[in-house]
């Protein structure tokens, strides 16, 4: 350093934020929401167990029926809902950051459709897709979709606007691709792919086992990217000035969002609105700092999907309605409100 010390101001420790109280409340609230979601989802559904019965079932001390219901049926389903909710929310946060567009999410940008199309093509070709292959095939499909979106928006570099527009176009393309494939398939292929419509019916420990590595890996990657995302949010030039590799960060963010979206599709089919809506709630409660926003959104997203699945299981019990309908019923009004308040 070829200079002397700069004029000193009184050095202070990390300054306090006036929003501290509100933020602590938000975090506490989110965690409480998640814990309550898990507790209620284990207690209620088509059948009801008391908290004691739930605990007994988990430690394998109660009746075999309760053990089956809580341990084999409810618990893995709740855990998958948790993982999928967190992943979709994180994916949406990343995509909204990369495209600088508040209406971006893995569904809108075609990543979930790409994952579903990957699975559809693989199923049609092979006739029967073994379960351990589902998650990676879907993740790969989403990856391919993301690459297509990225490639289509490349012109010397990628601008957030082009990325968002390409995503919407690719979403339409892939969705129609899925429809075409289904319509031209025989009945058995159609049946084999019915689960893509969305929902956690029948999800158990084996499904969790197959998907959790991708979801956990994606979530960790998302958290690690949060500081870079903060810099990216400043704009391409300020980010470059600060030494960020802008294209590399964008690619990593989109790739991570794709893996999260694809693995979520393989676990829960196509579930919309979670990635779109949760980041906004998160921003409202804890602000724009991705280091906080991404984990917070993950917690909130997990709670939302668990509650939505609980609702889907309870509203017409003992039958169920698809999860996607519940998230749409919650998400669509929120989206309308968002559009109103921002325009």
């Amino acid at each position: 350093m070829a200079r002397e010390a700069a004029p000193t101001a009184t050095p202070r420790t990390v300054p306090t934020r006036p929003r501290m109280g509100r933020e602590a409340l938000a975090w506490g609230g989110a965690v409480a929401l998640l814990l309550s979601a898990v507790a209620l989802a284990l207690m209620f559904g088509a059948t009801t167990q008391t908290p004691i019965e739930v605990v007994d079932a988990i430690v394998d001390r109660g009746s075999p029926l309760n053990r089956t219901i809580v341990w084999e049926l409810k618990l893995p389903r709740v855990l998958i809902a948790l993982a999928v909710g967190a992943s979709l929310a994180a994916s949406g946060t990343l995509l909204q950051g990369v495209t600088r567009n508040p209406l971006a999410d893995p569904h809108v940008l075609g990543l979930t459709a790409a994952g579903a199309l990957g699975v559809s093509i693989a199923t049609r070709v092979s006739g029967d897709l073994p379960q351990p292959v589902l998650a990676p095939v879907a993740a790969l499909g989403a990856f391919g979709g993301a690459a297509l979106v990225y490639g289509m928006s490349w012109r010397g570099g990628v601008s957030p606007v082009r990325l968002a527009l390409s995503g919407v176009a690719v979403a339409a393309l892939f969705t129609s691709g899925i429809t075409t494939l289904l319509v031209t398939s025989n009945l058995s292929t159609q049946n084999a792919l019915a689960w893509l419509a969305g929902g956690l019916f029948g999800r158990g420990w084996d499904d969790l086992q197959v998907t959790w590595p991708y979801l956990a890996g994606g979530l960790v990657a998302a958290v690690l990217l949060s500081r870079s995302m903060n810099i990216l949010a400043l704009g391409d030039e300020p980010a470059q000035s600060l030494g960020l590799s802008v294209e590399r960060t964008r690619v990593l963010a989109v790739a991570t969002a794709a893996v999260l979206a694809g693995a979520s599709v393989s676990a829960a089919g196509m579930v919309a609105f979670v990635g779109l809506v949760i980041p906004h709630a998160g921003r409202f409660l804890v602000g724009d700092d991705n280091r906080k926003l991404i984990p917070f959104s993950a917690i909130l997203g997990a709670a939302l999907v668990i509650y939505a699945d609980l609702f889907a299981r309870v509203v017409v019990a003992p039958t169920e309605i698809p999860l996607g309908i519940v998230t749409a019923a919650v998400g669509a009004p929120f989206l309308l409100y968002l559009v109103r308040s921002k325009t």
Partner: protein
Amino acid sequence: MHRYWKAALALAAATSLIAAAACGDDDDTDTGGDATAAPTTAAAASPTAAAGTTYPATVTDMLGRSVAIPAEPKSVAAISPTAVEFVYAVGGTSKTRTKSVTYPEDALAAKDIGSAYQPSLELIAGEAPDLIVADSVLQPQLLNDLEALNVPVLYVGASSFADVPKSFRIIGEALNTPEGEAQATALEEQAAEIEAKIPATKSKVLIVNGTPDDFFAALPESYVGDLARLAGADNVAAGQPGNAPFPGYTKLSLEAIVTEQPEVVLAITAAPGQTISEGLAANAAWSDVPAVKNQRVHEIDAQVFLQAPGPRAAEGLLALAKLLYPEVFGE
């Protein structure tokens, strides 16, 4: 207060969305036949004499239409799996068939006109039929298109057991064969016989259609549900709303199923790969269910019970009775 009308509107939209999904399609509740007794279902309106049909004939079909048939049909075009099987079951032949038809073998020689949902009208017309036999369950919406071919169109089909004898009589009359009446009577008699032998305590039965990971439960209102009822099943899905994408089925939660403890599971596996029975056997969540423990999870024929309901009702009903009560009806 008026500023909240938008919120109320959004809420109403959301609620109706959920309600629509929850209730699904349940306007087929009244087709569940009451055929517990013997032949309560009289034959179609026109008098079916063993003496045969005189032409020109007017036959009332399953949609209640009066179909004018000028002469004995020589060139029949049946355009759905059920229609094809009905025609062959009374000794007739069809010039056409749909893609998924595999029974009877003779039918494979017929012209493939595509899917039952969207058969090729050109190919149908190309066979120069003098009678078109269509499916009253799958194809009522094709009526206008079919009538435009200027050929008599006769609807047969079955969404419940009671429809089957009716359809047999209709097709028998239209094709001038006593076989229709014979099949109908035999079916009614068989149903009565079976009903008489059903034990007082009925088995708790779950009927599912789909894949091991994603299946729907058949309601008593569905065709297979109706047959199962006649075979003495106590359907664990009874009373639930039909909220599956197709009528007569419901998305019954696994918790409810496991709690109900069905003694028999009848499965129609709709996709290649692992069958439902294999899947349930391997699934820890089902290990306590009596049907799985006692190895009473049975795959049943998709064609007979789902895709071509009606013509093979006799063999279907007997098969179910044997699966439910082997001690009474044999293996």
